C-alpha cells in the first residue's frame, strides 16, 4: 500500500485526508443511527434496542471499573462508552467496506488503520488522564506525582507519558493496518490467476476477515482498558 496515492484536500489551511474524513463520518453516522434508534421508547422493562444499549453501557462501565475507583467511574462512563463504540466500529468498518477511487486512492477503509487517527485517540486519552489528575488531586499533588518515588524519576515519568501515548496509539494501528493490508494481499492473490486462485483465496479471505473482526473487537477493548489504567494512575497519589 505504500506506493498508493493518497487523496487529500485543503481546508482552512490544514491538510485533510479524504479517506480519513469520509470513513470517520461513516462511523460517526453509523453510531448516531444505532444509538438513536436503540434509545427510542425507553421503558422500565427494556425492549430489544434498549437492552443492547444497556448491555453495551454495562460492558464499557465494567471495563472502566476494572481499574478506576468505583466512585469516579460515573465521570468517565460516557467517554469510555463513546471511545469503545467508535474504535470498535472503526476497526470493523474496513473489513467489510473498502472503496477506492479510479486512481487507486482509498476513500473508505478503517479509520484506525491510519496512525494519525489512532494517535489522536491516544492523545485524547493522555489529555483526559492529565485533566482527571488535576481535577481529582489538584495541580500541586498531580504534578508532584512525577517526582515520585524520588526527584530524579522525573525524566522517566515524562518519558513514560510519551511511550504510553505511542504504544497505545500504535498498537491498535498496527493490528488493524496489518489486517487490512493482508486482506488486500489475499484479494490480489485471488484476482491474480482467474477462477482457480479465486476458489482457493476466498475461503482464506473470509477466515481472515473473521479473525480480523475478532482482533478489532479485542483491540477496541484493550484500548479502553489501557486508557482507564492510565487514567486511574493519575487519580491516586503515588507513595
Amino acid at each position: 500500500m505504500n506506493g498508493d496515492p493518497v487523496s487529500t484536500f485543503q481546508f482552512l489551511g490544514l491538510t485533510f485526508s479524504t479517506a480519513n474524513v469520509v470513513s470517520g463520518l461513516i462511523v460517526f453516522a453509523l453510531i448516531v443511527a444505532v444509538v438513536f434508534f436503540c434509545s427510542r421508547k425507553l421503558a422500565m422493562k427494556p425492549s430489544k434496542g434498549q437492552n443492547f444499549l444497556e448491555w453495551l453501557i454495562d460492558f464499557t462501565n465494567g471495563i472502566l471499573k476494572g481499574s478506576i475507583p468505583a466512585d469516579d467511574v460515573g465521570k468517565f462512563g460516557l467517554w469510555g462508552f463513546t471511545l469503545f463504540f467508535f474504535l470498535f466500529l472503526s476497526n470493523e468498518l474496513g473489513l467489510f467496506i473498502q472503496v477506492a477511487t479510479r486512481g487507486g486512492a482509498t476513500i473508505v477503509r478503517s479509520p484506525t488503520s491510519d496512525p494519525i487517527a489512532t494517535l489522536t485517540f491516544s492523545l485524547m486519552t493522555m489529555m483526559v488522564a492529565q485533566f482527571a489528575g488535576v481535577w481529582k488531586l489538584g495541580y500541586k499533588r498531580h504534578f508532584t506525582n512525577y517526582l515520585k518515588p524520588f526527584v530524579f524519576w522525573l525524566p522517566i515519568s515524562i518519558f513514560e507519558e510519551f511511550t504510553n501515548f505511542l504504544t497505545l496509539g500504535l498498537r491498535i494501528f498496527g493490528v488493524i493496518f496489518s489486517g487490512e493490508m493482508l486482506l488486500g494481499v489475499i484479494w490480489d492473490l485471488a484476482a491474480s490467476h482467474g477462477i482457480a486462485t479465486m476458489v482457493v483465496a476466498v475461503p482464506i479471505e473470509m477466515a481472515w476477515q473473521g479473525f480480523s473482526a475478532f482482533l478489532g473487537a479485542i483491540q477496541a477493548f484493550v484500548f479502553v482498558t489501557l486508557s482507564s489504567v492510565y487514567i486511574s494512575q493519575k487519580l491516586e497519589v503515588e507513595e
Partner: protein
Amino acid sequence: MLSHLVIGQALYFGDSLFYIVTFLLLMWIIKIFAWGPVTKMMQDRADKISNDIDSAEQSRNDAADLVQQRQAALANSRSEAQTIVNDAKTNGQQQREQIVTAAQADVQTMKQNAQKDIEQERQDALSNARNDVADLSIEIASKIIQRELKGDDQKALIDSYIEGLGKQHES
C-alpha cells in the same frame, strides 16, 4: 501509510482535528440521545428493584406478624372456650346439687309436717273420742240413773274407767 506521515508531501494534521471534533460531537449526541436517558432509566430500575426488595421484606414481616397475631387470638379463644365450658360444667354441678339438696330438704319438711299432722289428728281424734265418750256416758248414766250427778266427779270416774279400758285393750 506511515511513510506518508514521515516523508509525505503534507502531514494531514487536519484529520487529527477532525477526529477530535467528531469525537466530541459524538459524545455530545450520545449523551443527549442515549447516555442520559438510558443511564437514568437504569438508575431508576435499580432504585425500583431495591425498593421492591425492601417492600417485599416489609410485607413479609407484616404477614408473619399477622400470622402470629392470628395464632395468639386462636389460642386465646380456645382457652376462653375451655373456660366457658368449665364454668358451665361447674355451674351445672352446683345447681344440680342445690336442687337435690332443696328437694331433699323439702321432702324432709313435708315428711315431718305429715308426721306432725298425723300425730295432731291422732291426738285430736283421741281427745274428741274421750270427750264424746264422757258426754255419752254422762248422758247414758243420767238417763239410766235418772238422777243428777255432779259432772266433775262423774268425769273423773269415767276417765279412770276408760284408762282401765285402754289397759285392758293393750294387754
